[in-house]
């Protein structure tokens, strides 16, 4: 077998699928969501993933970055990703228009252990763009609502303008099978909602840990205090789940960036229980 055939024989994990941007939503002044479909219709039809899995988006000529697929597998008209404008790749993503071509390598990584969460009450604690991975699971759970107990969502951002997925927040706020608690930092102009940091609001709400699983994502500093506060509220380490981010390049556990000891966030994560993070001696 020639080596060129060898490359063809193994699916090339670095070669993205081409995809087209079919929708874009301005979520906040610096966060944009993109809805994409794979150009290969058959591939798009066969595409399957689990809530919490991520993908690498390419803007050819600029580079690749990792984003969670934040539309749920129960809604497959398109794959949605959200990007906060922070570096070169995200700045290029923000420049995209409808019809533009991007590269997608997905799905990558593990997912939320939702099968083990069936029948239990669910507490989501999110901050800023950290709502993206939670959104996937929230929508998935709402689409399979009877499988889960009470759903509580605590979500905060710096200001009203920085609250992500406003359309979803409005929907969830109206539902009587979801308890939604929104909070913003002090002095944010907008309709009166709670004021205060997410970890503080979590303590004020003080959810009981019985039969509950807590899932949190946000900026590292928020996750750090939310994990501490959940422990104080009596949540067991196995029942606290977070999803991590890191600078990633390959997405398949080789390039050496996103490791926590011998585990890789891209491949063995991004979803970890607090119990797993403690075994890995991970400190946020």
């Amino acid at each position: 077998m020639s080596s060129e055939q060898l490359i063809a024989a193994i699916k090339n994990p670095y070669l993205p699928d081409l995809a087209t941007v079919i929708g874009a939503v301005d979520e906040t002044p610096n966060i944009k969501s993109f809805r994409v479909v794979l150009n290969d219709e058959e591939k798009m039809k066969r595409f399957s993933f689990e809530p919490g899995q991520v993908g690498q988006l390419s803007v050819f000529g600029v580079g690749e970055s990792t984003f969670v697929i934040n539309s749920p597998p129960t809604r497959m008209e398109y794959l949605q990703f959200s990007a906060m404008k922070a570096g070169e790749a995200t700045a290029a993503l923000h420049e995209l228009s409808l019809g533009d071509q991007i590269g997608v390598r997905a799905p990558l990584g593990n997912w939320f252990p939702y099968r083990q969460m069936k029948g239990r009450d669910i507490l989501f604690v999110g901050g800023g763009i950290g709502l993206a991975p939670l959104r996937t699971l929230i929508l998935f759970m709402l689409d399979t609502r009877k499988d889960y107990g009470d759903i509580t969502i605590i979500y905060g951002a710096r200001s009203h303008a920085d609250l992500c997925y406003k359309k979803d927040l409005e929907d969830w706020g109206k539902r009587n099978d979801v308890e939604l608690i929104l909070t913003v930092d002090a002095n944010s102009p907008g309709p009166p909602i709670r004021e205060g940091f997410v970890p503080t609001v979590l303590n004020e709400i003080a959810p009981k840990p019985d039969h509950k699983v807590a899932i949190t994502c946000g900026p590292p500093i928020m996750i750090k205090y939310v994990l501490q506060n959940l422990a104080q509220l009596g949540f067991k380490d196995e029942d606290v789940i977070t999803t991590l981010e890191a600078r990633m390049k390959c997405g398949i556990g080789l390039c050496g960036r996103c490791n926590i000891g011998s585990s890789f966030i891209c491949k063995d994560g991004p979803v970890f229980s607090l119990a797993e993070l403690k075994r890995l001696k991970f400190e946020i």
Partner: protein
Amino acid sequence: MKKAGYLKKQKEKEFIAALGAKARVYAPCLEDEAVLFKPVEPDSVICLSRPAVSSPKSAIYPQSETLFSFRFKKDSEDPRRTLVELDDTIAVPDTIIFGARPCDARGIAVIDRAFSKTETPDPYYLARRAKTTIVTLTCPEPSTGCFCTRVGCGPAETSDSDVMMTELEDGYLMEALTSKGEALLESPILEDGTAYEAQAKEAQKAAHERMIKEAGEADTTPVDPETFHSQVFWEKAAERCLGCGACTYLCPTCYCFNITDEQVVDKGERIRSWDACMFHHFTLEASGHNPRAQKALRLKNRIGHKFVYYGEKYDGIIACSGCGRCIRGCPVSMEISTIAAALKKNSGTVSGEQ
């Protein structure tokens, strides 16, 4: 019976030229004062007497390589749209690494495992690796910083090579270790080597003993977990590190990489290049957050990868071949061997770093 050939020193050039007619030959070549592993050119001066500054890993895992090319094209049906075409075909030449040292071959074995024994193997590496034959030289003399025997390798270690060559008075005994190696020894330039085998065995034994005397026996003491997770230990160990990353580029087992795009007008390439975990920006996120912001944490990751993490995944194997290149190449004389030894004690300090 293993195939053995004898290469007379006066025929070395002729033999390498013959290999070069069939494949790309990588060998330690003199460049000014330095010995560097490079593709052999007609005017190259091959130098087997000193260990090369660089490792031969670049023959299989180039310092930079194109993963695929992309091209922008107007959509003929809708001229407002730009389409993208991708092409990931690559040419993979037959390659012979000539004159590696056993520590170099061990380094390649370490990278082999990382790129193949994993959920998603790396097709670029595998394609090149499948077409590579490794001819290794029994290491005649230890160099400054060498400690291969301490990490379970050795100057006459044969397990990671296709051919072992041992220097004798007027030539080299070439012993095939694999079928690839046997194919390489099919050459009219070589004489029958059987008569030299006993002599070579003696030379290998002597080389091994010299190295043991210099560096000591294999140290199988496990890393002390408390020391390994001590912040004080790493702060002290990393105190004089400049974060230049030279160690990672010289290392035969380091394989961390970066992926970047380069574009000129309507076409470009996605390129993979060696990167270094000792660089601050290696893990720096666009938000400004950096999970390994301190050099102590970066050093812990680098040494940890070689002496702890790799073994957790691969059967306790140490991902350091003791070649000593990082020691010889470090501008501030940091010694991975000293740090590794200190890690095994519950001391909390690096000996010799008071």
